[in-house]
């Protein structure tokens, strides 16, 4: 029986097959999902901001650049081999369009870029992404097969 493990904003978690990692209502945040195809260990981080240089807080899961190494480390403890990990990401939408161009409003785009950069520096291949747009997403990551399910309000659902 598969358990669904919920991950909140600025949080991360790791599980094994056949469990499912879920995060609801990704807006400008990005869900970073990592999977080891051999041990079927999976991990998911729900990051809010691109870079820890923006502010010092105790929570490494909040920033793309610190969440990826932390997630890899947690997965290693559960039996994953970092050299085998592959990634899928979703989210990074721009929920509000303001008339004035404000940098923080492009936070979704910056989160996506930072997530990709963090994966690249950890030498993890990005297999698929569903990012951008102006709508929220709920995602479920299946440890069993590494599939990522994406659900939206108006644009249906899909697997990537």
């Amino acid at each position: 029986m598969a358990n669904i493990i919920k991950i909140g904003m600025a949080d991360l978690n790791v599980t094994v097959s056949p469990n499912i990692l879920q995060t609801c209502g990704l807006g400008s945040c990005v869900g970073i999902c990592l999977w080891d195809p051999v041990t079927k260990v999976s991990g998911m981080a729900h990051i809010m901001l691109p870079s820890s240089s923006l502010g010092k807080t105790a929570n490494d899961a909040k920033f793309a650049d610190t969440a990826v190494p932390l997630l890899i480390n947690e997965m290693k403890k559960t039996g994953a081999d970092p050299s085998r990990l592959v990634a899928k990401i979703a989210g990074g939408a721009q929920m509000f369009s303001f008339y004035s161009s404000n940098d923080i409003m492009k936070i979704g785009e910056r989160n996506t870029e930072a997530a990709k950069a963090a994966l690249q520096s950890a030498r993890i291949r990005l297999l698929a992404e569903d990012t951008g747009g102006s709508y929220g997403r709920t995602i479920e990551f299946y440890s069993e097969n590494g599939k990522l399910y994406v659900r939206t309000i108006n644009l249906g659902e899909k697997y990537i």
Partner: protein
Amino acid sequence: MPLYDNISETQLDAFREIGTIGAGNGATALSQLMGRKIGMSVPAISVLPFSQVPDAVGGAEKLVAGIFTTVGGPAPCNILFMFPVECAKTLAGHLMDRKYGKDEALDEVGMSALAEVGNIVSGAYLNSLASFTNLEFVPSVPALAIDMAGAILNTVLARIGIAGDHALLMETVFSEIEGNVSGHFFLLPEADSLEKIMEAIGVKG
């Protein structure tokens, strides 16, 4: 200094008091706009870790209309006015003198009517905050999104996430006395803004 980690009970009380009067002004403005009686709850103030905020508004996947205003000045804040989507449609319908069907989406005009509601209520609220503190609060043009509550909160919380891991939520429920329109009004002060507001009204921690 991390945000909200060392706020005292006295300061929360003072903040709640300003909030009550501010929200009262907002409710009055909304009543005048709609030509109906609008009630309001005494603001509930809570300091929550980010991961718990969506649950406080009925779940991350709940379909809501969010009206988001950023407030500039010496004590920058963010204001988010959130309605369940059915309430948003009823509200926009009252203002536009029409009715939105159950499966009908809000049109452009309805959305801009809703944004105007946000504008008026936020304005009334900020006026009372300004008169208490003698600080200037400069609201942006409101932006509107209709989507999952969690997705809307992401963007708003990202603005204060730079400074801390907790959100200070001031939640007031506006409700139409004869009907069923209710909404949540959130004020999220940015880093140092809360201290500045407290200093301006002379409440020490």
